[in-house]
């Protein structure tokens, strides 16, 4: 499965994002931030890369601050 990961500045933002995306029926999971990304916070949100446009749109709408969105394997 092709995944993406959203990075955040705070874990509170990650938890907020998880809730918003899960409520929109997207398949997401909080994971320890993969080492290859220099991240501000210990947890990142994994999602299915096919949903990336929708992820960006939903987080934008809710004004959740995002530190980066990357494609992972």
């Amino acid at each position, binding site marked *: 499965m092709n995944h993406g990961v959203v990075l955040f500045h*705070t*874990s509170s*933002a990650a*938890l*907020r994002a998880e*809730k918003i995306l899960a409520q929109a029926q997207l398949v997401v999971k909080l994971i320890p931030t993969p080492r290859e990304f220099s991240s501000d*916070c210990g947890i990142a949100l994994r999602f299915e890369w096919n949903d990336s446009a929708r992820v960006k749109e939903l987080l934008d709408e809710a004004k959740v601050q995002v530190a980066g969105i990357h494609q992972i394997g």
Partner: protein
Amino acid sequence: MIYLDNAATSFPKPDTVVRAMSNFLERAGGNPGRSGHRLSIEAGRIVYDAREAVAELFRARDPLRVIFTLNATHALNLALRGVVRSGDRVVTTSMEHNAVMRPLRALERAGVRVIVAPCTRDGSLDLDAMYRAVEPGTRLVVVNHASNVVGTILPIAEIARLAHAAGALILVDAAQTAGVLPIDLAAMEIDLLAFTGHKGLYGPPGTGGLVFGENVDAAIIEPLWRGGTGSRSESEEQPDDLPDKFESGTPNGVGIAGLGAGARFVLERGVDAIRAHEVELTRMLIEGLQNISGVVVHGTRDAEKCTAVVSFTVEDRQVSEIGLWLDEEFGVLCRVGLHCAPAAHRTLGTFPRGTVRFAPGIFTTQDDIRVALDAVRRIVRG
């Protein structure tokens, strides 16, 4: 036992609060926001859910603008000392608790001008006096939403308008009103709201917070304490992100779990239903006490104009003596004295003798009130 001290702390707590706290200790005991494992994430979710419940209660759109503190006092200190600088002008009222007055008096010694707008003898605010006090150039207006001594409710939306017209921010001390009166951050134009978790939100002690209104730039507020946040760990500088900027150190996760459940309890019951119950009990108390010869009820004596806090004195009797009799002979628990609010008691004319304060809550029944009134009647007859 009849517990009439809910203005000090609510008792008992809802079962859901107790369960949420034991669940946190038994099942979710990781350090929220620190690690990436399941117990840390689960603890983080519980803390986040509490943020969301509090935000919903105060109609705040962004839960990350809810900052958790240990109580309303910490939240007030954070706001006062974070916003006000030497040379600034601050306006408050003569009905404040020491949680506001003591930090203000300390700031005064550090070069801040503190102006106290007078309230009337029933604790009501003279809006004209407030208007005159809030001169252009005022930095901050800090007011209680309702008095902890007599429950008198202040017109927050009107005060906020005066403050904003003068270019000032408004900080509201909602220690007595969170959960018992409707609070809408945007509609009331509140910039900073300090609340406690252990009174009208039915959470445990050691919980509370500061909520930032949408138009407040958190960058203007200095944190009172700095340290680890679990975020931006590569930097030795405090982050600017909310809520981390103001939440250094491991939070009171178990307490916040209880606070979240308490806020949900309030949301489910509905603030309007809670208020209706408390108005009814307050009306019974005021009428009943006024009918006892020798008893003087202080404040507005109008249940619609105050929270469920009724203060009274008895001619020629010490309040401490009445408090002791109520507890020992009748099992009625209340608080007597000055209630950490010397300014308010001076305004009410009850300084330094103090008052007996009855504060019913959501679990108080009309029968409880009848028993308490009967106890007072018997003590007065002596």
